[in-house]
């Protein structure tokens, strides 16, 4: 054994790691966010670009785009939310399993953007809770990746406790 061994050493520490359950679970969540592309307009093109080889969001453990809300953690609302689409966005958000996050990508999803009209919702945060807003019309893929990294920091730093996660269900007890 070298004198400067910083990594985990099973011979010294045994097969035991001591940590907090919150920290471990949130660390797992942080490094494996499965995004759900809610591609509604041109922002979706930049969203695709951020997943492709040039920008490659898989470096941060987010390459698994899930088109089923049941399998996704983070809804990326990429584009203009019309009032006609709003109930659909809301329904899909409700179908995602907890814990779940939302990124409002671009000016339209954040505020309605340049569309001030009878048909356009003035910000998707009126129907779903948004964790990160991305400015731009559309944002560069770097901006979206930055937003996803900010979301990772939120996941690890915000006290979203895992209490109750392993609680026995009362109906089965």
């Amino acid at each position, binding site marked *: 054994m070298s004198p400067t061994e910083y990594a985990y050493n099973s011979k010294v520490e045994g097969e035991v790691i001591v940590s907090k359950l919150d920290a471990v679970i949130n660390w797992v969540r942080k490094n494996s966010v499965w995004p759900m592309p809610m591609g509604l307009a041109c922002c979706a093109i930049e969203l695709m670009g951020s997943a492709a080889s040039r920008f490659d969001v898989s470096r941060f453990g987010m390459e698994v785009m899930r088109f089923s809300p049941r399998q996704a953690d983070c809804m990326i609302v990429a584009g203009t939310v019309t009032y006609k689409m709003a*109930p659909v966005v809301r329904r899909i958000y409700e179908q995602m399993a907890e814990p779940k996050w939302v990124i409002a990508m671009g000016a339209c999803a954040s505020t309605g953007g340049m569309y*001030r009209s*009878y048909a356009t919702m003035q910000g998707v945060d009126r*129907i779903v809770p948004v964790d990160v807003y991305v400015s731009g019309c559309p944002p560069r893929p770097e901006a979206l990746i930055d937003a996803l990294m900010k979301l990772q920091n939120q996941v690890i730093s915000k006290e979203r406790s895992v209490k109750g996660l392993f609680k026995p269900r009362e109906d089965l007890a």
Partner: protein
Amino acid sequence: MEDIAKTLIGRFGSITRRKSADWPAFNVPASRILDVCRFLRDDFGYDVLIDITAVDWEHESPRFSVVYHLLSTAKATYIRLVCPCIHDHKPSIQSVESLWPAANWHEREAYDMFGIHFEDHPELSRILMWDGYPYHPLRKEFPLAGIDTDLPLDDKDIDLGDGAKAIAAPMMGGPFHATPGEPMSHAEPHGSDESWTEKHPKPEEGK
């Protein structure tokens, strides 16, 4: 072009020529629109329906006109038909969906935006706004900023309980324009009246 005008006016006496800057245009009475369209398609080769839209003349009668743009792919020429709707209050006209299936969605859009009823349309429902939306937004009396309307969030599974609704968005006095010749820092498009913004609420009527 002149032979089309002669043939059309000779065959359907109630058709009149309409002033046009480019392609020939005709006023067609609502009762003959289906016959005229079928004639143009079968005998003159106008095989593509490019667009159906409508015009709201507000205070005139007939108030609504439906505008058809047809294309002949063989001759590469267009023709425009303008057809006033029968009623001002509940405007209606014959559907041409039986001639060009493309008319289906165009007519649904004209119905959605102007409230024009296309008779014999297979499924005349809204296409851009949601089902149950109470207004026709491109009518002249509809305000530019919109009208507060409840959203179709009545499903209890997706109900937020916060009463999310369609809100009138401030237009800041739009339509927006940039003055040419100004320095670029001042040429940013702006509304001519910005008295009503997110920060300053809309002044009440009559004050």
